[in-house]
């Protein structure tokens, strides 16, 4: 009896020793990953980080969720105090702020030697947003763009058989669809005073021949007058000035607006919430056959240059890229590369919407890249808001934005 107790204890001690030495021998490295995935809903970065962490490969992944509004600030603070994460996922226009100043690791050579990451497979827009001076500083995580969602039931009721193809049709239809007395708007969008406002307005500037460096185009002025007229006449809610895209499209889902400008991240919720038939069409152009444009959204992944474990971090990055084929089926996100098959989901509306957004992506143009993108963006959304509230004429607002932008880009 006594003997068996001793042997049991010895056995326990032995096994403790083995576990301890096993841990020592492996000498795990820890890679920290920061992203906004998981803040609102389960996303790719949190899921893939957890999966990689569970693998027995000597690398642990520590994942931290940040809010959209604070991830750039937190990363800045962490970087300047020497506590930066190994991998961080940023909105694509914020990426150049870091890559242009060497805060992201130059992974050009690592990618060239990698069997998993192939730089040539990426779409041009996302690739541009992770490049600086011809070098590669990250990879696109997922991408998105905007189009026009429309309520097919409302269209049918108003006797309109096809979604708008030009901005003139967009206005005409919206005016015919709106029922101001009943709180039913013809259209909704987001002209919020932050990046979302720029995201939705810049494509209009671009399709009328401008760019972020040259914003005062005739088309942009026309568009601002058109939207202001719609707000003044109650065809569009004045709250488009303060609503973000998610909330703005929420009013469409609940049947209070006939059209909504937004992106593919809305699809899953719309399938659940919308009690009507809906469809998606490309962002209108000024005249039929004119050049198209749309916004390029989405997040990138980069390794911070201060990392102690570049190889391990790159392995984590490779694992995440290798899961790109799961982005759409599991999370509703579009991959940033052309060599990933998107299987049909079986939900007719979702698959039809996906097709439109994939076509729209061909016209999507990145914001920047420019290390002072935030200041350029502010000039653009300030102009948008000044013109839509009538504080300035479209020409005054855009000229002021132009003179601010001139001091930044020159």
């Amino acid at each position, binding site marked *: 009896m006594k003997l068996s107790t001793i042997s049991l204890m010895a056995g326990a001690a032995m096994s403790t020793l083995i576990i301890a030495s096993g841990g020592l021998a492996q000498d795990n490295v820890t890679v920290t990953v920061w992203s906004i995935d998981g803040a609102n809903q389960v996303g790719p970065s949190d899921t893939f980080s957890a999966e990689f962490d569970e693998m027995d490969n000597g690398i642990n992944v520590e994942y931290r969720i940040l809010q959209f509004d604070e991830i750039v*600030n937190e990363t*800045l603070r962490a*970087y*300047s*105090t*020497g506590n930066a994460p190994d991998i961080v996922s940023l909105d694509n226009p914020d990426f150049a*702020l870091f890559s242009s*100043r060497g*805060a992201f690791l130059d992974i050009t050579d690592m990618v060239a030697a990698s069997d998993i990451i192939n730089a040539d497979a990426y779409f041009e827009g996302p690739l541009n947003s992770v490049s600086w001076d011809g070098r590669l500083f990250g990879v696109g995580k997922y991408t998105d763009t905007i189009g026009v969602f429309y309520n097919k039931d409302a269209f049918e009721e108003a006797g309109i058989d096809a979604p708008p193809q030009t901005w003139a049709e967009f206005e005409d239809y919206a005016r015919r669809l709106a029922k101001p007395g009943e*709180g039913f708007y013809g259209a909704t969008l987001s002209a*919020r*005073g*932050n990046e979302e406002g720029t995201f939705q307005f810049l494509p209009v500037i671009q399709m009328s021949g401008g760019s972020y460096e040259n914003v005062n185009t005739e088309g942009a002025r026309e568009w601002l007058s058109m939207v202001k007229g719609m707000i003044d006449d109650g065809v569009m*809610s*004045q*709250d*488009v*000035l*303060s609503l973000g895209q998610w909330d703005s499209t929420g*009013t469409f889902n609940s049947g*209070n607006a006939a059209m909504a400008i937004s992106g593919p991240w809305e699809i899953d919720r719309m399938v659940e919430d919308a009690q009507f038939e809906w469809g998606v069409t490309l962002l209108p152009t000024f005249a039929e056959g004119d050049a198209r444009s749309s916004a390029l959204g989405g997040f990138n992944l980069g390794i911070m240059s201060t990392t102690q474990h570049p190889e391990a971090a790159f392995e984590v990055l490779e694992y995440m890229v290798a899961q790109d084929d799961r982005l759409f089926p599991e999370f509703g996100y579009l991959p940033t590369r052309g060599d990933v098959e998107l299987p049909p989901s079986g939900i007719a509306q979702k698959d039809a919407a996906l097709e439109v957004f994939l076509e729209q992506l061909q016209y999507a143009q990145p914001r920047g890249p420019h290390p002072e993108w*935030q*200041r350029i963006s*502010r000039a653009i959304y*300030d102009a948008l*808001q*000044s013109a*839509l*509230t*009538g*504080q300035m004429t479209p020409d005054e607002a855009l000229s*002021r934005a132009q003179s601010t932008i001139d001091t930044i880009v020159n």
Partner: protein
Amino acid sequence: MGRILSSITDGKGFDIIMVGVTMAFLFALAGVPLVYNVVMSFQQVDMFNLNTFSRPFVGFDNYVAVVNQPEFWLIIRNTAIFVFGSITGQFALGFALALFFMIKFPFAATIRGLFLVSWVMPGLVVGALWGWILAGDFGVLNAILKAVGLTERTLFWKSDPNLAIWAVTMANIWLGLAFNMMLLSVGLAGIPRDLYEAAELDGANSWQRFTTITLPMMRATIGAVLALGLIYTLQQFDLFPAITEGGPANSSNVAQYWAWQWSFVLFDFAKGATVSVMMLVFVLVASIIYVWSTRHEVRG
């Protein structure tokens, strides 16, 4: 040695240690950041030289640039509306409520206590609540205004440039009301009852009693409440991101939110510091008034 020891445990040494600890604490946590902020406003600072001290000196360039921003005067105007609107509203309503609760009626103290709920709630929560109340198409306030027939059209509190700053001011009045009421109630309670009784015997009516007894006796309290109100209002930040984000087009932007935007949206930390140094001057004036108005209390 024994003398020093005994002085530390009981005597001048003890006083010096007590004052010294407080001063060291103040210096480390208020003095150094304050000076650092002022120094930053004369430098060129971005995220990549944030952690070094050797940054290019630019003299008054930041100040010139801030004043020359097209939105500068709009933000000054908004800050003035927000500060004076909030203080006036908080003080007038707070005083009225404080006087009301001086009347003895059942549960007066309990109900007065319940008013503190608004004061203990975090600003972001209050902001989110008011964000819903003030929403244009589905807001509670619009529903009420329409139901009682005050307005036919929808008022876009958060998106109309003529209303936005007033919307945030309204929320801030609600937030600071209880604090004003409490301080003023304390002041009212400190006025001796017999003064009122004597005045009543002399035939003073209630308005005369208010202007000749209540107001003069409350002078120090009122000065303190107004000065603290100014400081708290200039500090009020949470409501802005939660309700209007300073928009539309800066029409509800105020100095404190602007300073934050410079630093943490545009990453121009020097200009953010510049705006806050400008505000510091204002707060300093308020603090001097506050200290001056409470000088009797300290000596009494």
